[in-house]
């Protein structure tokens, strides 16, 4: 076998004392498509950013093309033959396709004038290699996301890239566009270019990749030929599960439900949101914790946000509490008795500069008024009751929420909804990034609330949380509900199986590509 084109060995990186990469290693051979997979926070992005020079590594060695190598910046990496194509296209929309491809190194005639003829001809030639035939003089914005991706790839190739990194390039493309993109990857491979392909869509990986490297908790845990792995093994490796492992009892603080499950509280049928969610259906009864499982990019969060009317759905019908639940804004959803804790506590949950009291009563405040003024006595009573009841550790209601630990911030956010007496609580990753003690407390609190009759929709990437906490589980895969499990049927392996393959075991159509000399 030839020497590897790229070899990253024992790469470590911490951010403010928190390790993001721990002795991670990655090897890519010429003309190879390498899949890089892992859950959120597994370290894929950090790995890529160290490779292309956006971050500096703390430790480890990189050799590229046989020599020791450190990129000072993404621009330098690009000149040396490593191009990165991000999910968000970082080109200039109002400039022409050709200008974008040659941005920063436009062909010139004398006197510093641009050689438009040459530029347009070369751009057309480049794009036609990927079967893209467009008028390269038109602004980039006139074209679809897929074409824009192609332009980004053409730009990368025109730098004589030896290695192209693609970070979730297909997440906003429709099926036909994805096919075109995957064919482009195979074309790159045929031209001798190596590709690192990051995607959460397993079908795509199996269609174009030669090998796969799985990351988990900042480490590279598995590298293998992709044909040697099943989808199920891949998912198990990402989640850190042994397939033979029997279900452990008591890995979480969830106890058996002691409440009674009531009548139907919410039913969402055939929900669709753009390309992200195509056909998701779930239902929740009173007093029930319903788990929503799926890999990253399966549409879990999007579905939850559509139910709460935080985003608009393009199709589907929702019934809530006996009447229509097709709300047009969170304000209506809240008024009807819903609450939603987002997965991103910092960006969408807390108001960092405000106090515990203000954060806790953010939704309740309008009903805490006396002739338009905020009734601070009433506010204090509510806040102090919840601080005591659910054990929020803070110096008092006036402490700034940003000074609290993650677990206590999460408790404040839970209390923000609990003080509203909701009927349904949607919890997106309720225990992510929280220490073990607070995690257990939050889990027992969720169980207690459900026992008291609250309906809970819980999204979690931690399988044990889903398996032990939920009375029923819905599994989403690529925006579709592919499985539903009742309590007695829930097992980690069954859920994983559904996340990986869904009901029908399908392998995508093989893509044809012509090899060029």
């Amino acid at each position, binding site marked *: 076998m030839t020497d590897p084109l790229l070899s990253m060995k024992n790469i470590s990186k911490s951010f403010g004392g928190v390790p993001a990469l721990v002795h991670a290693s990655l090897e890519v051979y010429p003309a190879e498509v390498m899949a890089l997979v892992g859950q959120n926070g597994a370290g894929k992005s950090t790995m890529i950013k160290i490779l292309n020079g956006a971050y500096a590594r703390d430790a480890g060695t990189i050799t590229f093309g046989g020599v020791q190598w450190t990129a000072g910046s993404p621009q330098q990496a690009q000149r040396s033959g490593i191009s990165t194509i991000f999910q968000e296209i970082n080109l200039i929309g109002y400039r022409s396709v050709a200008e974008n491809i040659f941005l920063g190194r436009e062909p010139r005639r004398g006197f510093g004038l641009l050689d438009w003829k040459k530029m347009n001809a070369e751009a057309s030639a480049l794009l036609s290699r990927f079967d893209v035939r467009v008028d390269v003089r038109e602004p980039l914005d006139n074209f679809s996301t897929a074409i824009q991706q192609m332009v980004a790839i053409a730009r990368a190739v025109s730098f004589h890239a030896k290695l192209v990194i693609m970070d979730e390039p297909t997440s906003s493309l429709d099926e036909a566009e994805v096919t075109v993109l995957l064919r482009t990857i195979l074309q790159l491979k045929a031209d001798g270019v190596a590709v690192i392909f990051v995607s959460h869509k397993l079908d795509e990986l199996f269609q174009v990749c030669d090998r796969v490297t799985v990351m988990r908790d900042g480490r590279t845990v598995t590298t293998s030929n992709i044909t040697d792995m099943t989808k199920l093994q891949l998912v198990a490796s990402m989640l850190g599960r042994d397939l033979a492992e029997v279900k452990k009892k008591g890995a979480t603080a969830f106890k058996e439900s002691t409440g009674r499950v009531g009548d139907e509280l919410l039913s969402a049928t055939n929900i669709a949101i753009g390309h992200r969610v195509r056909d998701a259906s779930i239902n929740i009864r009173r007093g029930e914790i319903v788990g929503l499982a799926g890999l990253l990019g399966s549409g879990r969060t999007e579905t939850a946000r559509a139910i709460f009317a935080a985003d608009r759905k393009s199709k589907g019908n929702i019934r809530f509490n006996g009447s229509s639940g097709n709300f047009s804004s*969170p304000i209506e959803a809240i008024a009807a008795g819903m609450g939603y804790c987002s997965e991103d506590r910092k*960006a969408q949950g807390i*108001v960092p500069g*405000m106090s515990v009291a203000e954060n806790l009563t*953010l939704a309740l405040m309008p009903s805490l*008024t006396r002739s*338009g003024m905020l009734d601070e006595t009433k506010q204090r009573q509510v806040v102090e009751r919840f601080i005591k009841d659910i054990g929020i550790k803070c110096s008092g209601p006036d402490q700034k929420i940003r000074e609290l630990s993650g677990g206590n911030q999460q408790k404040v956010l839970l209390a923000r909804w609990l003080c509203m007496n909701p009927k349904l609580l949607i919890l997106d990753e309720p225990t992510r990034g929280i220490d073990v003690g607070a995690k257990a407390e939050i889990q027992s609190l969720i169980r207690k609330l459900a026992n008291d009759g609250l309906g809970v929709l819980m999204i979690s990437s931690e399988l044990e949380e889903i398996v032990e906490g939920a009375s029923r589980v819905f599994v989403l895969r690529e925006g579709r509900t592919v499985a539903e499990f009742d309590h007695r049927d829930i097992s980690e392996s069954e859920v994983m199986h559904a996340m990986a393959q869904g009901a029908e075991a399908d392998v995508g159509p093989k893509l044809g590509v012509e090899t060029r000399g």
Partner: protein
Amino acid sequence: MVDRALFFQRFGVAIAAVLLILFNLAFTPNFATSQTLAVNLSQICTIVIVGVGMTLVIATGGIDLSVGSLMAIAGALSPMFFTGALFPLPSLSIGITIGIIIPVVVAGIFGLFNGWLITSFKIQPIIATLVLFIAGRGIAQVSTNGDLQVFKVPEFQAIAIGRVLGVPFQVWIMLAIVSISAFVLHRTVFGKQVLAVGGNEEAARLSGIPVRRIKLLVYMICGMCSGVAGLMVIAMNSAADANLIGLGMELDAIAAVVVGGTLLAGGRATIVGTLLGALVIQLVRYTLLANGVPDPAALVVKAGLIVLAVWLQRQEQT
């Protein structure tokens, strides 16, 4: 270090105001006279009133560049009513009433227009309010044919230069606006929601706060404050010149807000701080002038104050 920066950001402007007053009491002749007090307070009245509206806008994470132009619109409209230029007046007091209410309402509607651009089209506030920054003064000039309107109506001009307890009436108006808005910002649900929108807009939206309505309201209030300030300028000058009313006001108001300790990124705001900020900027200028430093040099010191305030803000964010 961060704690100390935070302390100065919160109380620095008050300390600076006290130090400046003590310095002047000791070294500037005739400082402790009601005349000097009245002059200094009158100088900052319009800046503070516009600054109150600006503080609310900045508290939501926005900015309003159109305030000076809205002052010009209100100032140009008003004389048409109370001088009877548009229609004969049943009585002077009715004319003055209309001449106060309509310009302020019109300025409020233009403010609402700013908010509408920002919320409906997701245009950045600095761009959206640039529209009226440019067009607003044009509207004011067109509505007066570019003429200077000179008038002598003491009953109207009392809103600026009349005195109550020896203090100019405009100072009382300023103090009233400052106390009411400080109360609204810190004691009402609306005020808390304004700060929540500026502190984390997405969290506010997901908590059921009517983000759009809040933004519309703050830009409307800012427009109305500008309208009031515009009336004061013409009352003081006994003339309305659409070319000059409120010229450069947006920057003076923003400077007062920033020096006062309101966070430019939104989420934390202080109305009293804005009052003190305007006072400190004015006192620095007065102190330098009274002690023989030329005005251009005083401008450099003013710029230095703003740099200092922004630097203090950055200490907290990092």
